[in-house]
């Protein structure tokens, strides 16, 4: 079983990878193999668990951390596998004829990777694994939306989709982490077993809200509904597959996965019903206003996603009956309609109702008209189509049983369904029943348009009709085997629902006749949307970030130097505070203390002051050398002739070096710093000097019983065979330090040489002037 599931998830990725190296058109043929394999392997799975039951396949992932990559198949999962496979097959076939040479290896790679990721989502038991695939769909979707990245609109839509679903993804991640911490597992099946405990724990609310956020952003629920229409810049097959049939349903699928855990939670039903119905209404309104038919379909997709979201809320009361019918219904008719809009663009040369409304296409495109008609009627929920059953279960759920009275939810549902009638009619009647004869020049000639652009949607619409005509068999045997389907056909419902339906149809028809007038009303046109807020946030963040970025790097090295030195003081003070003692609680005596030590100390101090205050380079360098020579005197006090000698030589060589350099440099100008800055710099310098001095003194005067140095003195002669311990330390005990330091010297020389030569060798350019100086 592991192999089967692994192949189902893996084969699209594998074939996608192959499509990168295999040339067109062979990679298109090859691509067909991926969904075909998924269907072939998925069908037995569906047979096995469609009527109930589940398969759990353990798979180890992070064994040390107790995380698994377990796979899990149940009815919902297997159903989605088949959905992804069957619609995927249609999409691949359609894409080959629709995109033609635009179907590059990269396109197939991304499309099939997306397919594999979707399959991963629906087969994961581990929420972690689910999340991995979840984000992978976000990524592949971003690249697919922007596949035509030469267009501004595609880039913008892709970015918006990525950021919105990205926010949701992060929320989902935190939700999963917190849920995992609450329950001690990330695995769905284990979470199902302990749903009672989880819901009883009040801490479940935050992870649940975060998971909702993930689902709502992915499924474009209010107030995140704006990204989906923007994503429609993608070519028709991508819109059909990602943004109506599968990816956007991942959010709904997640709700389905969460249902067994959280359906009893207090916020489950109210949140989902509210958000879902608001989305249904708002998106329906947007669809009514749309003139671009693809935008219309996008909004209507959002609306239906609202229905599906709300349904999961109501299922908490009425049970999961009709769960799959609604998903299937929408996936079938909406993806077909998207594909048909793709055909329409080619055949009619436009998808804008402002143009098409005037024209009478019914005469020329009978097959297209029939197919779009079926889709539109399914959208309305007309009898003899699967859409009818779907709508029926929806009403049943909203009313929480047979309709007995008016509730707010029911009113909204009726209202939004009426809007659906309007936009379905716009889509069908608007396009095909205008008055003028359509022009012939627009669009592609008939023989340039592959018949597959109609065959694929026709095949996808077939179950709509079959399911509508023989619902008892279709629903009871194919879609939800094993369940006894109550609602069978419309004539069994000659009750109040029929009245409502008829009223909706009539109202919808009048609404369609006057949709432009309705769309022009200011009512509802200023709906709150996070789109503007989100865009404002993004541009605001960017603006602030760039000023912050500039500010952070202002000030140059005097400020940088001050910062690091002040932090150093703070750290020293912090260290002292941490120890809970004072620096000098062991006394002040440090080393030999001859009475005349004050004299070199004074010389050093005075020379140091001059080094800083003098305004000519050469005297500065000389004063610095005086400081160094003064230090050498202290080495003598400590009876360290080697160090004193080294110090003298280093000072001599470096003062010569500095003099050589300064000879070639311009004299220092006047000090241009303001008095205040000078004072600040002076204070910083003095405080740092005093702090470091105090630290050195405190460390030097501290008595340690055993030092590395004492041991080195004892070992120097007997073992290292040297009487000069300093030299033995340099070449033996700590030879690695010396080795390192001579390399430091070597690099310094080489680096200076490289810098110098680099300046010389540079080709003449705009900066050549500066080099000459």
């Amino acid at each position: 079983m592991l192999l089967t599931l692994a192949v189902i998830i893996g084969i699209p990725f594998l074939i996608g990878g192959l499509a990168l190296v295999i040339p067109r058109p062979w990679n298109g043929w090859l691509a067909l193999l991926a969904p075909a394999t998924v269907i072939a392997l998925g069908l037995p799975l569906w047979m096995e668990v469609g009527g109930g039951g589940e398969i759990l396949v353990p798979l180890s992932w992070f064994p040390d951390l107790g995380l698994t990559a377990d796979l899990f198949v149940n009815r919902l999962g297997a159903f989605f596998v088949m959905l992804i496979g069957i619609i995927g097959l249609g999409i691949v076939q359609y894409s080959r004829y629709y995109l033609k040479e635009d179907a590059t290896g990269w396109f197939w790679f991304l499309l099939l990777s997306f397919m594999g990721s979707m399959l991963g989502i629906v087969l994961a038991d581990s929420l972690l694994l689910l999340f991995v695939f979840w984000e992978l769909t976000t990524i592949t979707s971003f690249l697919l939306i922007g596949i035509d990245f030469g267009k501004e609109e595609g880039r913008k839509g892709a970015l918006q989709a990525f950021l919105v679903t990205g926010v949701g993804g992060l929320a989902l991640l935190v939700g999963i982490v917190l849920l995992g911490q609450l329950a001690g597992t990330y695995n769905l099946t284990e979470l199902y077993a302990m749903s009672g405990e989880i819901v009883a724990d009040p801490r479940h609310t935050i992870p649940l809200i975060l998971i909702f956020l993930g689902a709502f952003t992915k499924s474009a629920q209010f107030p995140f509904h704006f990204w989906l229409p923007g994503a429609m810049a993608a070519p028709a097959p991508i819109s059909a597959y990602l943004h109506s049939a599968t990816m956007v349903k991942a959010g709904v699928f997640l709700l389905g996965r969460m249902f067994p855990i959280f359906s009893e939670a207090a916020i489950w039903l109210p949140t989902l019903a509210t958000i879902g119905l608001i989305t249904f209404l708002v998106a329906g309104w947007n669809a009514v206003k749309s003139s671009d038919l693809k935008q219309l379909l996008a909004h209507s997709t959002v609306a239906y996603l609202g229905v599906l979201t709300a349904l999961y809320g109501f299922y908490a009361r009425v049970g999961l009956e009709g769960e799959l019918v609604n998903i299937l219904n929408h996936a079938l008719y909406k993806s077909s309609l998207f594909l048909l809009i793709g055909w329409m663009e080619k055949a009619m040369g436009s998808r804008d109702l402002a143009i098409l409304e005037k024209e009478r296409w019914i005469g020329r495109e009978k097959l297209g008209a029939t197919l779009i008609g079926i889709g539109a009627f399914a959208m309305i929920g007309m009898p003899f189509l699967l859409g009818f059953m779907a709508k029926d279960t929806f009403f049943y759920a909203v009313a929480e049983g047979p309709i007995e009275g008016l509730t707010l939810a029911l009113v909204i549902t009726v209202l939004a369904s009426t809007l659906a009638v309007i936009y379905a009619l716009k889509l069908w009647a608007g396009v095909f029943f205008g008055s003028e004869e359509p022009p012939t020049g627009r669009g592609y000639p008939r023989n340039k348009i592959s018949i597959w652009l109609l065959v694929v949607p026709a095949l996808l619409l077939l179950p709509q009709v079959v399911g509508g005509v023989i619902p008892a068999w279709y629903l009871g045997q194919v879609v939800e085997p094993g369940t006894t389907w109550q609602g069978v056909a419309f004539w069994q419902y000659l009750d109040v629902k029929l009245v409502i339906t008829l009223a909706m149809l009539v109202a919808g028809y009048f609404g369609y006749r006057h949709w432009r007038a309705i769309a022009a009303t200011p009512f509802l046109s200023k709906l709150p949307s996070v789109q503007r807020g989100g865009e404002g946030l993004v541009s605001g963040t960017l603006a602030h970030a760039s000023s912050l970025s500039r500010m952070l790097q202002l000030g140059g090295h005097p400020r940088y130097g001050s910062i690091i030195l002040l932090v150093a003081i703070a750290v020293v003070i912090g260290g002292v505070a941490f120890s809970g003692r004072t620096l000098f609680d062991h006394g002040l005596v440090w080393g030999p203390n001859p009475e005349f030590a004050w004299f070199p100390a004074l010389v050093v101090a005075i020379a140091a002051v001059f080094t800083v205050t003098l305004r000519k380079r050469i005297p500065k360098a000389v004063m610095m050398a005086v400081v160094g020579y003064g230090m050498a005197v202290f080495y003598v006090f400590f009876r360290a002739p080697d160090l004193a000698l080294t110090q003298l030589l280093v000072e001599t060589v470096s003062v010569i070096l500095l003099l050589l350099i300064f000879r070639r440099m311009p004299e220092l100008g006047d000090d241009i710093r303001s008095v205040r800055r000078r004072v600040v710099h002076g204070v910083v310098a003095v405080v740092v000097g005093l702090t470091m001095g105090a630290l050195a003194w405190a460390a030097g005067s501290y008595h340690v019983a055993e030092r590395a140095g004492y041991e080195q003195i004892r070992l120097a002669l007997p073992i290292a065979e040297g009487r000069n311990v300093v030299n033995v330390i340099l070449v033996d005990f700590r030879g690695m330090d010396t080795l390192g330091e001579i390399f430091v010297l070597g690099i310094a020389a080489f680096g200076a040489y490289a810098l110098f030569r680099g300046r010389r060798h540079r080709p003449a350019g705009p900066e050549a002037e500066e080099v000459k100086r």
Partner: protein
Amino acid sequence: MRSYILLAAARALLPVTVLFAIYMLLRGHNEPGGGFIAGLVTTAAIIIEGLAFGVAHTVRRLGRILTAFLVIGLGLAVLAGLIAVAAGDPFLTNYHWHMPLPGDGYVHLSTTLIFDIGVYLAVIASTTVAIGVFAGGEEETP
């Protein structure tokens, strides 16, 4: 304005100073001295020569040798440590040999000396090259 006394002194000084430096280097293990100090002494001598004859001239004259000194010096220091690796001991483990001389004395040879010679050469080369870089360039030739 060049002092011929300085020129003469510098010409005489360099070999003497180098000899002194080598003395400092060899005795370093037991008396004040060693490769680092010896290297700086030699550098000082080269600088004096440079002050007399022009730094660029001096460095150019010594250029090849100095590059070789850098490579040999650094290489020698590492190789001195690698002898121990070849013998299966930890890197930088030192070995001492006492070569008896006719009479009572002996010569103390050790890998630390090789190391120190490496230090000596590297110090000369790097300080002088650096000075050459900063002082050299389009300086007038003597």
